[in-house]
């Protein structure tokens, strides 16, 4: 069934049908990978023409300051406008901060939404929930991340999981683990595959993707057979959700480890050094590059977390005091890294003709206070911030919405997080009235009823 060479490396697996995999796993509770898709397609809820669309969501954990980056207020008093100056860009519609010079050169490719806001508490977690799922988690309802909903609705396009998180899930930003990063009520079977490794380290490889050399085809088959023998002897587990999940994880693991395509996708050494360097030889840059490779090979949704924590790391969370970051830290470390990685990704996708089918969106959980605080930083501010979109059928070089003179509140076209999420769904070809099976099997529309995508963004 699996074709392995004597050295244990896999020579061919692409010929294997899905059914073979199901049998290979011989595990209960599968059929997890291509569930309601056919049905939804039949009902016309999914536009199959768009199902090769993909999305890369760059999540700017910590939250960048709009006044210092993409919504500058040069005419405001110094404690508002901050230390940086705007520069002209390739777009006639907007200027951008001098600390993002490479963004300026590709400003015709992306558009800014300068009027995003939310009304929940000004803590990281609320924004993480809403920006990744479209909803605040109230009443114990954990809404799925867009990427997980997509995996549920459209299944996988290749041996690779439909939704991958690079390089790691976000860690705690206060009390809890941030919510909104996983499949929520859809169940853990639709949780994203989390890389859990730094693609910038020298001999980067996906942890445990391939069997050790000495375990060849014969032994792998033997192990699988023996494991099935043990598992079929006890019937204590059939009903346990955790056990079903363990089974489906083993199935996915078999599938990914026997796939040439999967191995290729994660192999950054296949990229010319020049390309790797263009993205930046750091965790963020190489994650962006890896995101492109994954999308090229059929991954539908990649979430790139720019940072993993806001504590003790130089991040966008520029409170000005320890353990957070200073404005200078952002200027000298964060912005250059981000500028390089993002611009490389957009250029690369464009040059490869992938940008039309791949939406790249850069989100954050909130903005930052218009007024610089006594520590010389800016604090949390959910009342107004800027997000950006490129590719996936949207127009570049535009500005949607407007903030007031200090970047404190939207004055034109306020945009709520659910509209951002609706925009992503739309770009991915998901009808906004599509229903997911919510808690206790209740129908749950992907976004609140009546929510619209940001139409002005689309060409």
């Amino acid at each position: 069934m699996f074709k392995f060479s004597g050295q244990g490396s896999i020579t061919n697996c692409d010929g294997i049908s899905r059914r073979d995999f199901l049998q290979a796993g011989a595990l209960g509770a599968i059929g997890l990978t291509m569930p309601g898709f056919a049905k939804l397609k039949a009902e016309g809820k999914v536009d199959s023409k768009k199902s090769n669309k993909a999305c890369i969501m760059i999540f700017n954990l910590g939250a960048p300051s709009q006044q210092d980056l993409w919504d500058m207020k040069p005419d405001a008093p110094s404690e508002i406008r901050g230390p940086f100056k705007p520069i002209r860009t390739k777009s006639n519609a907007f200027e951008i901060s001098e600390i993002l010079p490479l963004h300026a050169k590709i400003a015709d490719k992306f558009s800014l939404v300068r009027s995003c806001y939310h009304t929940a508490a000004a803590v990281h977690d609320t924004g993480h929930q809403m920006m990744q799922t479209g909803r605040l988690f109230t009443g114990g309802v954990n809404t799925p991340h867009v990427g997980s909903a997509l995996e549920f609705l459209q299944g996988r396009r290749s041996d690779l999981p439909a939704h991958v998180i690079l390089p790691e899930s976000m860690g705690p930003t206060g009390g809890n683990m941030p919510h909104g990063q996983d499949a929520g009520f859809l169940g853990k079977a639709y949780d994203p595959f989390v890389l859990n490794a730094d693609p910038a380290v020298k001999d980067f490889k996906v942890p445990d993707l391939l069997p050790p050399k000495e375990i060849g085809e014969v032994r792998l088959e033997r192990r699988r057979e023996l494991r099935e023998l043990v598992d079929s002897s006890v019937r204590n587990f059939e009903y346990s959700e955790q056990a079903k999940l363990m089974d489906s994880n083993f199935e996915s693991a078999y599938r990914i480890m026997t796939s040439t395509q999967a191995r290729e996708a994660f192999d950054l050494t296949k990229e010319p050094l020049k390309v790797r360097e263009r993205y930046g030889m750091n965790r963020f840059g190489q994650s962006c590059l890896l995101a492109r490779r994954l999308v090229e090979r059929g991954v539908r949704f990649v979430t790139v977390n720019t940072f993993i924590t806001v504590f003790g790391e130089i991040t966008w969370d520029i409170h000005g005091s320890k353990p957070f970051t200073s404005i200078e830290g952002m200027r000298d470390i964060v912005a250059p890294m981000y500028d390089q990685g993002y611009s490389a990704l957009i250029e690369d996708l464009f040059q490869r003709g992938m940008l039309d089918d791949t939406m790249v969106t850069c989100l954050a959980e909130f903005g930052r206070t218009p007024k610089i605080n006594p520590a010389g930083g800016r604090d949390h501010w959910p009342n107004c911030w800027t997000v950006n979109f490129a590719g996936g059928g949207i127009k570049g070089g535009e500005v949607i919405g407007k903030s007031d003179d200090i970047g404190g509140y939207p004055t034109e076209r306020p945009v709520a997080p659910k509209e951002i999420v609706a925009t992503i769904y739309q770009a991915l070809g998901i009808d906004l009235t599509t229903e997911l099976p919510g808690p206790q099997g209740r129908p749950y529309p992907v976004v609140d009823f009546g929510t619209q995508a940001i139409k002005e963004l689309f060409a």
Partner: protein
Amino acid sequence: MTFRSFIAFAALTSAAAAEAPSFRNTIQPILTRYGCAMGACHGAAAGQGGFRLSLRGFDDEGDWISVTRSANGRRLTMEDPARSLFLLKAVKAVPHKGDKRFEVNSPEYKAIADWIAAGAPGPKASDPLIVALDVEPKQLVTKPGVTMSLKVTAKFSDGHSEDVTRWAKYNGVNASVATVDEHGVVKTTGRGETVISAWYLSRLAVSTLVVPSDAALDEPAFAQMKPRNFIDEQVLTKLRALNIPPSGRAEDHEFLRRAFLDTIGVLPSLEETRAFLADKVTDKRDRLIETLLQRPEFVDYWSHRWSDLLLVNGDKLMPQAMWSYYNWIRRNVAANTPWDVMVRDLLTATGSTLENGAGNFFILNDEPTKCAETISVAFLGTSIACAKCHNHPMEKWTNNEYFAFANMLSRVRTKNGAQADERVLFSAADGELVQPLTGKPQAPHPLDVTTAVSMTSTEDRRVPLAKWLTSTDNKLFQRAIVNRVWANFFGSGLVEAVDDLRVTNPASNEPLFAAACEHLVKQKFDLKALMRTILQSETYQRSSITLPENITDLRYGSHYVPRRLKAEILLDTVSQVTAAPTTFKIDKRNANKGTSESYPMGFRALQLPDSNIASYFLKSFGRADRVNTCECERTNEPSMAQALHISNGDTLNQKLAQKDNRLDALLASKLGNEKIVEEAYLIALARLPTEREITKTSAMLATAKPEDRRTTLEDIFWSLMGSKEFLFNH
């Protein structure tokens, strides 16, 4: 509430106050009920549109000033209340971002108009204060598809009561059983049990709804269940009420493996398994329980458990201090110190942090509010963090209580000791924590207690704090520890989410919870006694095999719920089965790289004092990082990374391939193939192989070429350790 009852309400209030509606008791509830004072609107920390209210109206004085005085008093028009901006906005007669909140001439509109007409009087010291909130029905057994209204009554300090159904805020815990709307109308949607909470003036009341299964009660199944102790009695009563039949008793081998893993975190050895299975005495399970409670591994297991709770962490503490903290925990576990004594010693620790390891608790929690929050989560299973900025929105904790409690910890100080890395902990004679709302220190007192500790006394405030915390009157203290111990043996607590005890998150079996707490108090907080009672119960000894009628039950004890072994135990059992110990590298930055220093060979993961160990295995299987006091730090959820690691990772594969491990010993033993397979099964799964297993597996060994014999056995062991039966406790 009908309009008529509102009139009655208005009449009552006016009769009570004989004047205008009270700001505190009439206007504030309206502002909360209609969302004005909620976090998304004016209750946000910065207010909304320049108008700021306290979240859910916890600050009467401040809100009154906001409504009547702020913005130059433009919100109210005393001579013509209907023209007040306050009302015009609420009914959206002028543009209002928050939309229309209620109708013109609605009861709330009139109440506010009357209040303005009366000169908008502020809160007064003489206002009656709410003393109790009551909801009817308190408990109801009903069917799916039923609709009914709740009735909420508030009692005040002047003796009068009001029907406040219309102004209460409602919340349902489990929408699959029942939903509640904003008017307090409940609809049952499915079967099971749920709780609806009603909130009014920072008070909470709950109504429990039970929708039992409608199948005929399986009387014979219940009749043959002989309760061993109070746990079984209470569980059976509950199961009867819900009409869920219990599963039968677990087999001896299942109980053996289960009790070992849940109590001491190791597998029974080959000899122990053989002996136990062969033993014919009737009380062998009780005897096993006694042995387990006395085993040295018991100390490892529970020291590890409490080290998770108390955050023993080499990234935050210097090595000597970390060891001193850990050894303090170990000594107490070994001596089976009563839980109340142990906590009291911890919270009143003074002196050198190297000599008295307990003091490191205060090094990790070096600030009064943080310390108060940690104490509350760790020992009361309750989060009070919300109340730092405002009254807890869903619970009873107020902002004042929070600062009163934190002020109990404001005099803890440290100074440098004589040796490097030594800190000396002491209580200063002065120092106060300021309540930011008033700018003054809040008179210190423990939670839920109204008499303050003297502010001038120089006694260490932690002494009365610890005394109150561990007193037998403090139900939360008992509930928290009972729930933690319960969760260890049953996978989830009597209150699910072990450290989330609150009125609105009730126990799956409240009488059982109360009885278990009483039992613990009677046993003088002897945790081993509680564990013994749990282990001996028929409930714990039930099979994990379900019946069609109890398959969906995960909370009420009708069967044992299988669950994945936690990271450390899994790693230890893999080492135990292969007889190939793990090397643990000390990891200064917790980056999973490790330094050159290692723990002595043979250390088990459960014996590590510290979570700061480089281990991909432990990390991907979800160990706790010990940064925050929260059960959520640990996860036992399976993931694809785990499946990949079991298949391809270096943990199982290296241990299987290691020289002179268990496999080599078996191959060298001259045992026949069938015997080898039998031993492998007994070692890994504590059971004999089935006919089919032994035939197929021993045939594989028999037909293997000599050079492939070892790898065949490796694959047999791999399949045992990769099976769900191994990865799970069941």
